[in-house]
């Protein structure tokens, strides 16, 4: 791990300065926010879900108008009327959510808004060549620029988006949780690029919930809570505990004892599961009362494995068994899996997780309508109570259960999906990136939830691209590489390097 270059302090000129920024939707989201960014500086913005980080960056990048306050950029008054104006002034942003057009090619997405053209004709060769350069720089050399984006995995798409932004010149770069979908090697590549930009004097606003990253690259940290700046200090003057305390406004939750559990009987057995090239002959078992991690590089087939298990995609071969039964469960669609007590929390909450235009209440009870209805009639009192209870468990922060899901911050959206499956109380729970985009304090809550579930005898499988997280919470870890299970480790036997080696194994074999 390379240590960041000595922090450029306030001797550098102020590049971007925000004074008294305010913004309200139904409630105030930002109140009197001051923020300074110097050129060549990485300024981290941290805060709990819903603290207002994305909103602040949207105001800076011209996507949302602020209600009050003033901004200067390079000493000049700065009030972008839209994204195009902000870009013209040299402000670029990678948004928290994916913003790609799946039907267009990778190259077209990279050039979105600025397609190379002559008299309205797209110059494909120029476009593809430039795209290839940008992709190579982002470590995506093996992605075909003329392939439709829809053929890429989420992680690769995130990298494409970053590549698209990085190839445009800018003075201020905002990265809103760029690493949420990335694995460590990709993160390293990204940080190399950030270091290069710093050298060129670009000011970078960096938003992340991964504290290790913040400490690795940030020169300065601003902590937001409920839309107010709590403190802004150089990274060296802050410790993890202090940050978490400021973010949460209370002492950090006691780190739940992740100590060993004693696994019970087998709850789920997967045998020889295959689907296309993404999932190849995957077999494993899950026991009640244990948390099993599923690690792997982006695109290694973890999501596809989960989808094949619950029948969201039909597997080409393989069987799934419940408990110690020797007859496989017939799973033709997710309903069969859910009925057999197997639930999946999908990774793409916008596409697969949430009814965005519906209230939190409806999103929470969706999988368990039977419990809040009699003979097909919804008992609205029961429904409200149930929805409140489970959203309290995940500590949802928002305007209550009647708020629409699309008005929630990214992390809170994830919490709603988790609440749905907590309510369903399935025996086998497959979590696909459950903590993506969730703040540190809430992550602990999720970990505690997972531990709770395991404690209650459920079988829990967690896919995560954050290997350290898996190492902290799992009893056992499976590692996927190019669609195969490339290694299995039990707690205490693993090291970071062993797991990474397993994750790379099948790619290395093939390349040699």
């Amino acid at each position: 791990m390379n240590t960041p270059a000595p922090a450029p302090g306030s001797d550098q000129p102020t590049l971007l300065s925000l004074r008294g920024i305010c913004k309200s939707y139904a409630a105030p989201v930002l109140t009197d926010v001051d923020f300074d960014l110097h050129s060549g500086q990485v300024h981290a913005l941290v805060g709990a879900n819903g603290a207002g980080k994305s909103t602040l960056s949207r105001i800076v990048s011209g996507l949302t108008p602020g209600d009050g306050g003033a901004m200067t950029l390079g000493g000049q008054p700065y009030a972008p009327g839209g994204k195009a104006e902000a870009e013209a002034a040299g402000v670029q942003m990678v948004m928290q959510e994916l913003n790609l057009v799946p039907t267009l090619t990778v190259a077209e997405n990279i050039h979105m808004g600025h397609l190379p053209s002559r008299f309205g004709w797209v110059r494909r060769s120029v476009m593809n060549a430039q795209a290839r350069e940008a992709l190579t720089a982002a470590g995506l050399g093996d992605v075909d620029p003329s392939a439709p984006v829809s053929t890429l995995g989420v992680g690769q798409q995130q990298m494409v988006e970053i590549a698209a932004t990085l190839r445009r010149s800018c003075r201020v770069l905002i990265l809103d949780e760029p690493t949420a979908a990335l694995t460590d090697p990709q993160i390293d590549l990204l940080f190399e690029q950030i270091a290069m930009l710093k050298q060129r004097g670009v000011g970078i606003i960096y938003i992340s919930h991964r504290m290790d990253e913040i400490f690795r690259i940030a020169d300065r940290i601003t902590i937001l809570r409920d839309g107010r700046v709590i403190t802004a200090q150089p990274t060296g003057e802050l410790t993890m505990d202090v940050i978490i305390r400021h973010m949460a406004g209370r002492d950090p939750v006691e780190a739940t004892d992740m100590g060993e559990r004693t696994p019970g009987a087998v709850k789920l057995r997967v045998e020889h599961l295959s689907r296309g090239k993404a999932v190849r002959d995957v077999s494993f078992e899950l026991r009640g009362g244990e948390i099993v991690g599923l690690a792997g590089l982006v695109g290694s087939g973890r999501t596809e494995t989960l989808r094949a298990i619950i029948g969201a995609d039909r597997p080409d071969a393989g069987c799934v068994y419940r408990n110690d039964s020797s007859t496989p469960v017939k799973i033709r669609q997710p309903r069969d899996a859910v009925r057999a007590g197997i639930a999946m929390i999908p990774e793409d909450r916008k596409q697969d997780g949430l009814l965005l235009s519906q209230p939190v209440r409806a999103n929470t009870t969706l999988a368990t309508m039977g419990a809040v209805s009699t003979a097909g009639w919804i008992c609205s009192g029961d429904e409200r109570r149930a929805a409140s209870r489970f959203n309290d468990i995940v500590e949802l922060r928002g305007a209550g259960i009647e708020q629409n899901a699309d008005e929630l911050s990214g992390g809170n959206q994830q919490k709603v999906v988790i609440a749905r499956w907590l309510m369903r109380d399935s025996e086998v729970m497959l979590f696909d990136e459950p903590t993506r985009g969730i703040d540190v304090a809430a992550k602990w809550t999720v970990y505690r939830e997972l531990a709770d579930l395991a404690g209650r005898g459920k079988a829990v499988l967690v896919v995560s691209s954050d290997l350290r997280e898996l190492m902290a919470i799992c009893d056992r870890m499976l590692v996927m590489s190019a669609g195969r299970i490339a290694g299995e480790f039990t707690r205490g036997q693993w090291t970071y390097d062993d797991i990474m080696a397993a994750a790379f194994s099948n790619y290395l074999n093939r390349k040699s």
Partner: protein
Amino acid sequence: MGELRPSRRAAIQRMAAEYAGMTLVLAALVGLFSAMSDHFFTTATFSTLANRAADLTVIAVGMTFVLVVAGIDLSVGSVLALGGSVLGVAMAQWGWPMPAAAALCIVTGLAAGAVNGAITVAWAIPSFIVTLGMLEIARGGAYLVANERTQYIGDAIAGIGAPLAGIGVSPAFMIALAVVIIGQIVLTRTVFGRYMIAIGTNEQVVRLSGIDPRPIKAIVFMICGGLAGLGAVFQTSRLGAADPNAGIGLELSAIAAVVIGGTSLMGGRGSVINTFFGVLIIAVLEAGLNQLGVQEPAKRLITGAVIVVAVVADVYRQKLTRARS
């Protein structure tokens, strides 16, 4: 954070605002026509209007359901004709009693709707194209059944469509009102309705939540077909005859009514009550223009303009409501 949570009071206010917009447009139309014609503002006009609106009402309720699950049903007009033809032949030629023939007519509609639904979900084809096929097929079926003849039935079927002495509205209209109320309750208060809205919002999410969206969608199309059959009973009863050419273009009127009522064509959002207002707006407009004896070109121009203006007005009303809340 108490003031953030939408209180019951705010909900009532919002609901009032929601229906107020529609009522206003309706009142404006009625006022306008009343001013322009001596005979518009009479019980006779309104009872005629209500009785005529019964068939469009039930069909628009079915269409609301279909639009809520993000589908569309272009075949309602043809299915109405098919149902009516079956009804006409059953009564005029086979001598069936009215209740049996009416039941057969509704079953015919249900069957056509079931085919729409089954094909739509089985192959995951856009319902637009499936029901476009059914538009042709059911029309062909209507011609076959009725042998391309208008089937005269006469008084044997008049009971449902004729205004009841005393109150001036027909049993058909009262049934239609009941369908509206039941439809609204189903949509807002039942698990089935909740699933409909969820499917219309994001079918993928529903599927991954362990609910099979296919039977639900299929049933919605079936309901829509069945209501088209019910509409056929109403229309046939009103006219005393079944015409295999009935209902041409009816799908567009029904969709217009539903959309004027603020239901989204993209699915996931809809109100049966507002659909009913949409139907009334269309019915009042048609009756008013007919009564003024407006010529065909002007009728078309005005109808088109009103459709667009009603929806634009709805956009502003929604903006206002949101700003106020």
